[in-house]
């Protein structure tokens, strides 16, 4: 039931660029490994080689002491190795059962045997603890449930080694906890788990051993219990990462109220929400997925129907009927969905940066030189690392894309900026940069609203945190009241 893996001198080259340099290490069965490294360290490439999505340029992969070269994911799957992608590979319009058996359908007399597939699906869903009808279309599931379906699918393929790439990036604390329980259960069944995450607290909690990679090389491995989080971060970055969060600088006591929301009602999501934020203040929003945080702010900028609520900016009542009106009044919102709603990954950096404020550059012809100058400044101010200033946004790493997105939504010079999951899928170095940036924004006198599912982020960064649950504001905690227990308590209603 369990599987032993050894990488021997694995190298991978894309054209002239070598992204993996002779990586060697082994993985023992029935354990949970945390695979650590910054973006670009080569973790994903190595895992893709293991799961058959890529082939090594040199070196040998050993599975249970047999030399193996997988030419495709199906072959790896046949050997019990399954990779669960960060972005799921589920067909949204098919049902759970259809997804689980996609390409492996059970047939009777040449026809699909739905009854058998539904029965088997129910069995796997029980194993992962998801109580949903197998006939439910996947698009109706929330992210956490889709993740469970992915794991159920892996189990249906008799997975003996499961690779999970950032599985908790989109999960709330409660859902993460359930996932960890499932992982421990799988480990008890003899399944080997390779766990890639940027969340070091989670690595500390769930893994037995860590493997650190940097710049395409194997750096070290150690039992998790023997290293601290700070040490992990230092190993990943290769230097000493000082404090992750900037020192908290409170807004001036006489700082004016910049943005106020009164009695916001969003059908299906928010019953009644009122809050305000002052100049220089960082206000956090905590809550489980489905608590209505994103939906509330989408409604505020007019992208979602609302049935009530009024707004004031700098004390003046304003009508925010569409994102343009919101921007004109000095409010911008950066979505949590970076590639789907935040950035045009197929357009250049310059086009992305100036998109919201083109009228500033159109006289009426666009002044490309001025745009380029603005980009050069933004690249410097926001610390965007890019080889080629003329490249497309998709060429950037996740962290740098996020910095570009921040630059874009700050380019209109908003008085209020809403950042939804600003560090999702971003490595530890870029995270720190973003935290310092957020603090600098507050210091410039802007009101900053941060929506996050990472409790440590909210605790480390915010002056106040509002906790939502089931479409209602539960409480607003001041900095000195911020603890993980308190946040989880209010978010889950167990306080």
């Amino acid at each position: 039931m369990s599987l032993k893996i050894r990488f021997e001198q694995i190298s991978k080259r894309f054209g002239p660029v070598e992204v993996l340099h002779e990586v060697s290490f082994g993985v023992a069965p029935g354990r949970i490994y945390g695979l650590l490294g910054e973006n670009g360290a080569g973790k994903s490439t190595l895992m893709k080689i293991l799961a058959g999505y890529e082939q090594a340029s040199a070196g040998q992969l050993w599975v249970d002491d047999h030399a193996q070269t997988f030419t495709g994911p199906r072959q790896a799957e046949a050997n019990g190795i399954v990779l669960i992608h960060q972005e799921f590979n589920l067909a949204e319009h098919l049902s759970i059962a259809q997804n689980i058996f996609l390409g492996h359908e059970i047939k009777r007399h040449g026809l699909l045997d739905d009854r058998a597939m539904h029965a088997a699906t129910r069995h796997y869903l029980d194993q992962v603890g998801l109580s949903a009808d197998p006939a439910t279309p996947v698009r109706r599931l929330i992210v956490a449930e889709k993740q469970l379906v992915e794991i159920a699918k892996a189990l249906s393929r008799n997975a003996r080694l499961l690779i999970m790439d950032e599985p908790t990036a989109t999960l709330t604390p409660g859902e993460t906890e359930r996932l960890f329980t499932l992982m421990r259960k799988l480990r008890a069944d003899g399944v080997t788990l390779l766990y890639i995450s940027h969340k070091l607290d989670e690595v500390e909690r769930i893994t037995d051993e860590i493997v650190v990679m940097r710049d395409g090389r194997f750096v070290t491995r150690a039992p998790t219990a023997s290293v601290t989080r700070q040490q992990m971060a230092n190993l990943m970055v290769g230097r000493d990462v000082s404090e992750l969060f900037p020192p908290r600088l409170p807004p001036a006591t006489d700082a004016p109220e910049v943005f106020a929301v009164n009695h916001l009602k969003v059908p299906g999501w928010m019953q009644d929400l009122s809050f305000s934020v002052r100049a220089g203040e960082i206000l956090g929003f905590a809550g489980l997925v489905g608590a209505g945080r994103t939906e509330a702010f989408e409604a505020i900028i007019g992208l979602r129907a609302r049935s009530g609520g009024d707004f004031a900016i700098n004390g003046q009542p304003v009508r925010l009927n569409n994102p343009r009106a919101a921007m004109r009044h000095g409010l911008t919102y950066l979505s949590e969905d970076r590639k789907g709603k935040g950035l045009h990954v197929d357009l250049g950096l310059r086009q992305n940066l100036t998109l919201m404020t083109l009228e500033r550059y159109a006289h009426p012809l666009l002044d490309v030189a001025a745009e380029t100058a603005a980009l050069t400044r933004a690249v410097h101010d926001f610390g965007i690392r890019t080889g080629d200033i003329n490249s497309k946004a998709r060429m950037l790493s996740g962290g740098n894309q996020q910095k570009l997105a921040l630059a874009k939504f700050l380019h209109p010079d908003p008085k209020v900026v809403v950042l939804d999951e600003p560090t999702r899928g971003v490595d530890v170095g870029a995270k720190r940069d973003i935290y310092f940036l957020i603090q600098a924004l507050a210091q410039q006198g802007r009101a900053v609203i941060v929506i996050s599912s990472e409790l440590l982020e909210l605790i480390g960064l915010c002056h106040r945190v509002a906790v939502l649950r089931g479409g209602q504001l539960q409480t607003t905690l001041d900095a000195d009241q911020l603890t993980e227990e308190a946040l989880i308590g209010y978010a889950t209603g167990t306080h």
Partner: protein
Amino acid sequence: MPLAPTETPRASLRWLGKLHAVGPLLGLLVLCVAGTLLNSDFATFDNMMNVLTRTAFIGIIAVGMTFVIMSGGIDLSVGSMAALIAGSMILLMNKLGTGTLAAHPVAVVGLGITLALVLGAVFGAIHGLLITRGRIEPFIVTLGTLGIFRAVLTWLADGGALTLENTLTDVYSPVYYGAVLGVPIPVWIFVLVALLGALLLNRTAFGRHVQAIGSNEQVARYAAIRVDLVKTLTHALLGLCVGIATLLYVPRLGSATPTTGLLWELEAIAAVVVGGTALKGGEGRVFGTVIGAILLSVISNILNLTSIISVYLNAAVQGGVIIVVAFLQRSRR
């Protein structure tokens, strides 16, 4: 965790990337060389002008179509729209020309031209509103109007031809047959429309917004772009281009029939796509569209100038060239 290195272009692929941009132009040059070898009359100034003049209609429409396709839309109705605009112009001009304004044929033609432009823009704006406000797929909206426009023209013409009165034809025909500096007027207008189109697409906020919407509509919406307005404007712009093409078309034969503009929509879309604009939107060039449109008419010109291939196979040659050029400029994955 995206793998940056997989996406850095390989040196060996660089030149292919450049080929991608000049593919249509290369195809056109090869065709021109082939044409000259097959028939020395091909390279004459008169023949070039013939080809460019007849390209003007499709070319002007294709420039407008570039905007619509760039924004992720499509318009199947342009041929029928051109036919209906042509018919309406002729009816109006005949009525005015035999009535109150009989003594001022130039004014009559001027009013006819104005009608063409206004009708085109209005039809386009109606498309835009049905698509954005009505939330109907552009394919369906314009498939519907494709039938409506042509049926209305056929009804207006009783199934036959609408023909412009002779006196008016004499006044109007220089718009198609006249020349400035030896170059026919439709070619000048084609060049003008193409230059303005390129400027609008590449150097104005509107053009950038069009590209942003085609690349990812959701992102554009979140970036405070007035998506519905911009989409409606692209359709109105295309309608205006159809109006311009039609006002050049009418003086050529002085008539509109139910076969006027038949299949123009496919030729225009083919010109846009052969020219390197992605059918799914977000990426495109007006210059490429112009080359694409010229390329398509050069093919049939060469086929008419030679008889090495059975006339039954003409369409196959055109189809083959389109596929080869599309291959040359296909975007890298």
